[in-house]
């Protein structure tokens, strides 16, 4: 008898606790699933958005593929900022995202980066890629990360896929790929321009911008998830992304902001 009572008490306590936490979450908190390449500008955007509206943004970074898989399995996100247009569209098809809410917030650019300080007169990263003068070439996993798929297209465009195959190493997302290069373990890597170009400071390492014509445009779509259809703060954030203030921030990080 006493044990049943204790059990009931514990269940009631747990329910009260989760209700308190959940209730707080509904009000004006927006949970964002953000593709890793956009992690840096997202920080600045979040500060600007929160300062203007008082809403709180909670950001989870990962590869677009991983975040998509998490959303399909019921992850509690309100807005998904993907690195492609395919997965947001698929979420709409599956009824997991609000139809008509998908919008392109940025078009990404790929960069080929090498670690350390540039030495004047030495071959550029792109020249090194073409002459095979590198030990390890880091790219994001093409199945999971759109920047990895774009890097694959660049290698195919340059007819270097076979030559580089045995030296490719894969980051689970573009953030891990960047870490492979930044720590010097890979001496060449395809990263997002946004990871190198920080407004107000020098780029971290030498890089070559990959011509946009060498791969399909990396159009990045944001989408409102179905479970948050009535979340006004989430809708406000999506509207904010299209405002000049947000577009300036996005452009300053090395993206082409949409027209």
């Amino acid at each position, binding site marked *: 008898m006493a044990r049943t009572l204790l059990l009931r008490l514990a269940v009631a306590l747990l329910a009260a606790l989760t209700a308190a936490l959940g209730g707080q979450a509904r009000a004006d908190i927006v949970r964002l699933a953000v593709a890793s390449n956009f992690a840096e500008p997202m920080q600045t955007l979040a500060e600007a958005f929160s300062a203007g509206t008082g809403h709180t943004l909670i950001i989870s970074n990962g590869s677009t593929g991983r975040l998509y898989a998490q959303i399909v399995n019921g992850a509690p996100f309100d807005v998904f900022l993907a690195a492609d247009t395919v997965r947001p569209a698929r979420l709409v098809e599956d009824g997991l995202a609000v139809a008509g809410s998908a919008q392109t917030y940025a078009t990404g650019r790929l960069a080929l980066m090498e670690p*350390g300080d540039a030495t004047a007169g030495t071959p550029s990263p792109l020249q090194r890629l073409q002459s095979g003068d590198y030990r390890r070439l880091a790219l994001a*996993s093409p199945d999971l990360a759109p920047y990895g798929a774009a890097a694959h297209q660049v290698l195919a465009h340059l007819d270097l896929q076979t030559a580089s195959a045995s030296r490719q190493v894969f980051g689970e997302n573009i953030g*891990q790929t960047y870490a492979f290069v930044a720590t*010097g*373990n890979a001496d060449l890597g395809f990263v997002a321009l946004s990871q190198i170009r920080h407004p107000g400071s020098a780029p971290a390492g030498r890089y070559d911008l990959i011509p946009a014509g060498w791969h399909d445009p990396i159009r990045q779509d944001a989408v409102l998830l179905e479970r948050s259809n009535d979340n006004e703060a989430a809708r406000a954030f999506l509207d904010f992304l299209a405002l000049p203030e947000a577009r300036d921030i996005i452009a300053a990080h090395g993206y082409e902001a949409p027209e």
Partner: protein
Amino acid sequence: MSESLPAILLTVQLALVTTLILFVIGTPLAWWLANTRTRFKPIVEAVTALPLVLPPTVIGFYLLILFNPGSAIGGLWVRLAGDTLAFSLSGLVIASVIYSLPFMVQPLQTAFERVGQAPRDAAASLGASPLDAFVSVVMPLSLRGFITAGGLSFIHTVGEFGVVLMVGGNIPGRTRVVSIALYDHVETLDYASAHALALGLVAASLSVLVAVFLINRRYPVHAG
């Protein structure tokens, strides 16, 4: 299943090499810990146990820094082996040896402590050298510890994930072990392949553990 074969072979290879190296490193370390009277013993024991409590991300991050060809160790390795430690099987072996060290040392240390001083004194009085006494008296009496240590180190290495994810680079046939391949399948929503690998890992782990417990029952403790 056939596409998973390279990952399975690689995982078994990694776990076998790691376990062998751990026997070589772990046996003297455990022997020393079982016999030392130094007051630094708790510190050495704590350092040995550290991989049990540290998140794999800590080990993975430090290894990434250490493996970098610009660092002393990473640079030396590139000069000797002509390849980076990160993204190579050798790098994974080093990571696994660190990660599984407590699973080797702790069962061995316990076993050595149980053998105690008496059998060694008896061997010595019969003219055996310390090494001879260790090989022909202590080791047979500690068989249970060796089986446990080897089995646990092997299967713990098979189950390793976080460190490999951080320093491996997910290269098919080179660093894509079963746990990483499984993760890839889950992320790309290929649940059929994920199920096959996950079930395989459960079956393999369970088999090794059951084998360890079964064998241990047949070789009861020889308390000193």
